[in-house]
């Protein structure tokens, strides 16, 4: 590849950035405040990937995360359709009456992911209410709502449900067959997956589809790296070609055909290839070069090349993408769970 030499990975600056975000998020994150627990997950998992978790007080983090758990009254009837997981922010948590608290699947995934990353001991953690009430969120078509009071249903929440079940090592909270059927219906004519049936193929949706199938046990790669699949699942050759075609001349990955390359898709789409045992097909040197054009002088990563201000989301997925590229300053990743692997 022509062009400048890739820069060094600025580990110290990245760790300082992640730590700073953990301690306070700037005002412009207020629009995302409903997803605070997810923002915390980006910060904590970043620090873990950066091998810098020693900078934080894990007990305090655990206490904080657990304080978002929504718990029913003892007399509560689990069949009434209410979900009891983790809330995403204080603004949907009402301590006077926790029945009014609105927990959601995405923040439940994020909360459990944080607890896993910091090594929380799940021995005494009672997950039964999470799993029992999660069943109410699954729709007849196999998709999931994120909250019990009505919202869009799409692949993101199928993924969250699968990841939650995997982390809790208990599949009683969802019907895997129905979820698989929904996922299959989301594969588009070009091999990628859209967020719903009929939607345009999208890198994030494709990750959710493949990771969920992987977690649920519907995709296995054996030691020869060949794929085994039950019949009537997904069109793998088209999927592989769709993923490979997302890498542009600039080395980065785009989320959809004919769109610009963006840092995060190096993880979403690269991650799919990794799960399929085909990451070696990626042009790694070109990708690395692209990612370093998104490395911010302030620490963290930006969405597009040569922008200056980083954001927490693109920073996290930038670290995750570099971990897939075996960047030596970074720890390993559990690709299908989207979090730092326990070292």
């Amino acid at each position, binding site marked *: 590849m022509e062009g400048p030499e890739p820069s060094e990975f600025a580990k110290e600056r990245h760790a300082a950035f992640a730590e700073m*975000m*953990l*301690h*306070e*998020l*700037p*005002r412009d994150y*207020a*629009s*995302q*405040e*409903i*997803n*605070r627990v997810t*923002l*915390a997950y980006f*910060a904590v998992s970043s620090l873990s990937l950066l091998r810098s978790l020693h900078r934080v007080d894990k007990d*305090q*983090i655990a*206490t*904080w995360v657990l*304080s978002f758990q929504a718990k029913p009254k003892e007399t509560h009837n689990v069949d009434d359709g209410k979900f009891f997981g983790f809330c995403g922010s*204080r*603004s*949907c948590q*009402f*301590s*006077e*009456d926790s029945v*009014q608290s*609105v927990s*959601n699947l995405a923040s439940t995934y994020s909360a459990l992911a944080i607890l896993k990353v910091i090594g929380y001991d799940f021995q005494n953690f009672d997950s039964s209410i999470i799993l029992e009430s999660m069943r109410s969120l699954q729709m007849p078509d196999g998709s999931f709502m994120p909250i019990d*009071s*009505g*919202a*869009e249903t799409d692949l993101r929440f199928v993924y969250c449900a699968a990841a939650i079940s995997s982390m809790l090592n208990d599949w009683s909270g969802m019907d895997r067959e129905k979820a698989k059927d929904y996922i299959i219906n989301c594969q*588009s*004519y*070009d091999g990628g997956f*859209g*967020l*719903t049936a*009929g*939607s*345009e193929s*999208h890198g994030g949706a494709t990750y959710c589809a493949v990771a969920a199938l992987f977690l649920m046990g519907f995709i296995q790669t054996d030691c020869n790296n060949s794929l085994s699949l039950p019949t009537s699942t997904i069109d793998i050759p088209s999927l592989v070609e769709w993923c*490979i*075609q997302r*890498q*542009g*001349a600039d080395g980065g990955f785009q989320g*959809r*055909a*004919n*769109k610009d390359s963006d840092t995060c898709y190096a993880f979403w789409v690269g991650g799919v290839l990794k799960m399929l045992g*085909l990451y*070696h*097909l990626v*042009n790694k040197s*070109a990708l690395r070069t692209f990612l370093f054009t998104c490395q911010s002088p302030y620490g963290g990563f930006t969405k597009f090349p040569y922008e200056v201000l980083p954001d927490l989301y693109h920073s996290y997925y930038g670290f995750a993408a570099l971990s897939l590229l075996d960047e030596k300053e970074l720890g390993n990743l559990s690709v299908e769970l989207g979090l730092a692997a326990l070292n």
Partner: protein
Amino acid sequence: MPSSSSEQAYVPLRQRAEWADVRPVPQDEGPHPVVPIAYTEEFRDVMDYFRAVYVARELSPRALRLTTEALLRNPGNYTIWHFRRLVIDALDSDLVEETLFVDNLAKANSKNYQIWHHKRWLAEKLGPEAANDDHDFTRFILCHDAKNYHAWSHRQWVLQKLGGWDKELDFCHQLLEEDIFNNSAWNQRFFVITRSPLLGGLSAMWDSEVDYTIKAILQNPNNESPWRYLQGLYKGNPDSLITDERIPQLLLNILKENSYCVFAWNFLLDVLCKGLRPNNEIIEAVKGFTELDDAGSSDEDLPTRICSALERMDPIRVNYWAWRKSNLTL
């Protein structure tokens, strides 16, 4: 997002007579908060009062106005939206006015899931008569951002739930005339031809769509979208892919003018792998092109030669073409 320094200075709710009877509920951060956000005073004030009405379940006109203020500052908060819907139902509020409110918010925050979900809730209540107005709105959003994923998702939902299919294919065509590279418009076209109750499904549309797509490819062969679309059209009918004479004709036309068109070589590789019996022109085209690259490989079969050529022509995907080549014998 509206800035906090608006034309009228913000009057904290604590200072408004209307709210004198309400005790605001502050956010309980707890000790050692993680990722705390540096909220503005306004944000904090409005949320403290929202918490109060939410817990009290006050479904009143002033509560509705409060949710308006809260949503202007925090449109991502689904708890506020949910509560607003409860108030609207309780007060039997005017849904057309509500549509104006949410549409204005959508224009400023066109990638916000909760706003689009609220639009969906309203559309369901308003019913099929509102379908065309709804399509006019998404058309407006797509004029400014022709690939907005939320807008497309919403549009597909309204079509399937409430109708308004009759002009959709024309809309796709119009967008493709403006930008033949718009993959969202191609996707929507596939959606329409396969699902519109007015068109008869893929089998009825297939032939004319192949012609349409070939025309688009010839207009710009280095555009991935129509190639994928073409592949998609044949998915339900794989035998015709290797018997339809338009396919080798298209490929030859392109490769004559654009011998380095990666998508054309890729497509030829795929149809050969699926069983196309190449005519002499195709064989000559492959041999003529790859001879320059691969001296000594003139005995190799066409797919192998094409993979080797692609390794050189498409260096970003060199590993992929090598892998395809190694799988050819399987």
